[in-house]
């Protein structure tokens, strides 16, 4: 028999070792997240999934569920802070949704919609981040990187290639590629890699396929991201 904890007043069953977000997702309750992915070891860096556990904020992707814990997630206070985090990610990089081929399929964008982000609010950093088009099949547009490290984990843990890693520190933290030239074209990366599938934004792109899916049929055109749990949960 499985135990339960309370999430926004709803009893959520969980199995030993499950994190709060895992249990919530399974139960069909959406908690916003960017660096968390059910297939990978939690990272806990984006902080979008922060919830209040017995009154203290903590990342629900790394926090193990425990019987009887009282968790708040969908509150105006927490959502306002999540919105601010999303705004930070928008001003930190160069996110020009209008001409981005991932628009409509982008988890950052969909999450911002979900949180009702009407503007990026802060002053923009407008960093200079050149694209890497050296690979015949894949384009890297670092302008949109949010440092979730999903590609890092996928390449390391699933593909066993370590094509990607984070370098730099603080605000200069950035994605690097496993080649002396620093160019993806000089790595053994392929479209079949798991790392090519996991980017939640528009950094790792299959070349020459942009805008193939019409507006109206894109991932988040039909339903808001909050309804994606039902699929993720399985």
């Amino acid at each position, binding site marked *: 028999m499985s135990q339960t904890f309370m999430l926004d007043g709803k009893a959520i069953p969980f199995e030993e070792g499950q994190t709060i977000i895992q249990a919530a997702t399974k139960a069909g309750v959406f908690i916003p997240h960017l660096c968390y992915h059910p297939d990978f070891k*939690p990272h*806990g*860096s*984006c*902080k*979008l999934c*922060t919830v209040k556990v017995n009154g203290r*904020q903590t*990342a629900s992707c*790394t926090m*193990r569920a425990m019987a009887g814990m009282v968790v708040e997630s969908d509150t105006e206070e927490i959502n306002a*802070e999540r919105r*601010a*985090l999303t705004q*930070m*990610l928008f*001003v*930190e990089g160069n996110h020009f949704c209008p001409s981005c081929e991932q628009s409509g399929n982008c988890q950052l964008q969909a999450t911002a919609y979900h949180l009702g982000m009407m503007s990026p609010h*802060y*002053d923009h*950093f407008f960093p200079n981040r050149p694209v890497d088009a050296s690979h015949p099949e894949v384009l890297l547009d670092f302008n949109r990187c*949010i*440092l979730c490290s999903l590609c890092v984990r996928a390449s390391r843990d699933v593909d066993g290639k*370590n*094509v*990607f*890693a*984070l*370098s*730099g*520190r*603080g*605000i*200069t*933290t950035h994605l*690097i*590629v*496993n*080649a*002396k030239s620093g160019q993806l074209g000089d790595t053994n990366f392929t479209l079949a890699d798991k790392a090519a599938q996991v980017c939640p934004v528009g950094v790792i792109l299959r070349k020459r396929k942009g805008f193939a899916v019409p507006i109206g049929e894109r991932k988040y055109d039909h339903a808001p991201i909050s309804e994606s749990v039902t699929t993720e949960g399985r």
Partner: protein
Amino acid sequence: MALNDMHTETVAGIVDRVVTRYRRDPTCMVQILREVQEACDWIPPEAIDRMQVLLGVPRTKIEGVAGFYSFFYTQPRGKYRILFSDNITDRMLGNKAMMDRLCSSLWVERGKVSEDSLVSIGKTACTGMCDQGPAMLVNNYAVAGLTATRIDEIAELIRNKVPLAEWPAEYFRIDDNIRRADILLGSDLKPGDALLAARARAPSDGLMASNMRSWREGLPTGLSGPISMLDEIKRSNLRGRGGAGFTTALKWEACRNAPLKAGLQRIVVCNADEGEPGTFKDRVLLSKYADLVFEGMTVAAYAVGATRGFIYLRGEYRYMLDHLNAVLAHRRRENLLGNNILGIPGADFDIEIHVGAGAYVCGEESALIESLEGKRGTPRNRPPFPVTNGYLDQPTIVNNVETFAAAALIALNGGEWYAGIGTKHSAGTKILSVSGDCERPGLYEYPFGVSIRQVLEDCGALDTQAVQVSGPSGICVAADEFDRIIGFEDIPTAGAFTVFNGTRDMFQVARNYVHFFQHESCGFCTPCRVGTSLLKNLMDKLHNGAGSPYDFAEIEKLNQLLQSMSHCGLGHTACNPVLDTIAKFRPAYDKRMMQQDFTPAFDLDRALAAARQMTGRDDAAAHLTTETGGEA
């Protein structure tokens, strides 16, 4: 021939030598990178090529680590790499004038490499010389007490390409400045005595047990030496000296009780990453009382059943490395380290020194452990905690230098004795690193419970406006609070005690600290990575006279966000200096709020400068006023 244009072979040769010395062990990445850079002046791509082969790790991992620590350079930085300490105390002592003087006399732009690629000059966070600033690091060797004359001499040496080894020794002299000694700074412990005392506390079977049998076989409390040692620590009420004040005995016991998988061992780590601006007591403890510290570590190892120890020495203290290694070597010869220490069967323990490379966040224990493992110093997700899953997933205790020193004395004199010192909630003494506006900066060791006022009196501080206790992440104490006491029940501290007199602008103090946190944020979590930068920009906006009540509200919102959403203590505390100074020195901020209405953070007229220069225009239409006024 400058090293940084050596042939690949030579670089490869260096890498081979270094990597071999470190047993081709990737967990020594930080050490390997440091030594390669010391030989090559930077970390050239060929070096990374070679390391990749020898260590069998992807180059992304090497570049990722090299890119994290501010003392590692993957671009040439010159043969002489000079970093001026930029703590608020260095500022107060005029470090900027010194830096400008050196820059102009060497014809080099700050942050850039000189045209002849001989020298680079930049800034770094507090180097722990606050009592004898302004200070700098030359190729990570500390030079303190800078004066205009000394700067000119140094410029001359560099111009003449005199090797660092041949620079006058007195340049590198670092004073201890011990102003008030108590049990620690007054200790004359004979190496080994504390261990012998610990041993004497228990019948021999228990001694055997400590390491030869696993704890799971169980031994009733009080029987064995290790357990009785733990009991002494319990009785002493010793709490961590790193600032957080976690009860030492609990940590040690948890580590000792942590199940040990086959082939694994327990680890004792001494946190000597004294990065909190304004703190420098660990520097003195290690340079003058190394044996006391090592003995404390050995006692801890004995108590928890650890066989391997590390000192994580901050990169700024690189100059102490040879001395500390010598002390360790001597202790090995005396059988105070190694196998069957002092003939205690199974009491095996040794200590390695890992030198950091310029990353304040590595003072956080899990980040420190990551760094020890040769990784980027990002704090781990917890639980699990280091006591059960620490260094290479082994049970690990991480304690402050001062904590171990105290532990040694507790082993020697017993817990009761120690508990009798200080106050009810804060046993023992605390070493304060006093600096700033006072006549006698240096180390002051007091039993817990001493008042701020007392310390100010003793150090000769006049007209004191505020004291920043425990550094930027600590608290800012205003004049009306000087009767508060140092102690876990009132003002806990890692030891920094920075004094500001009436002439200081507390806004600038806070701004300096905010810049510090922005520079030291590891970049792992969104709120801290972006938030500290936004906070810095807002403080600069106020500084530039473009501040309005709007920005003030923004600062407070950011503070709130950093505290609630950040991953680790750095983010949680990054706003403390701002919150404190706002609460206690509001006028310093009001003075900065020159605008009534929202004003842009950037200067609109300057934003047209490029176009003006290109067009040669200067007519009225070629300018923009900052409508709501305010100085630029």
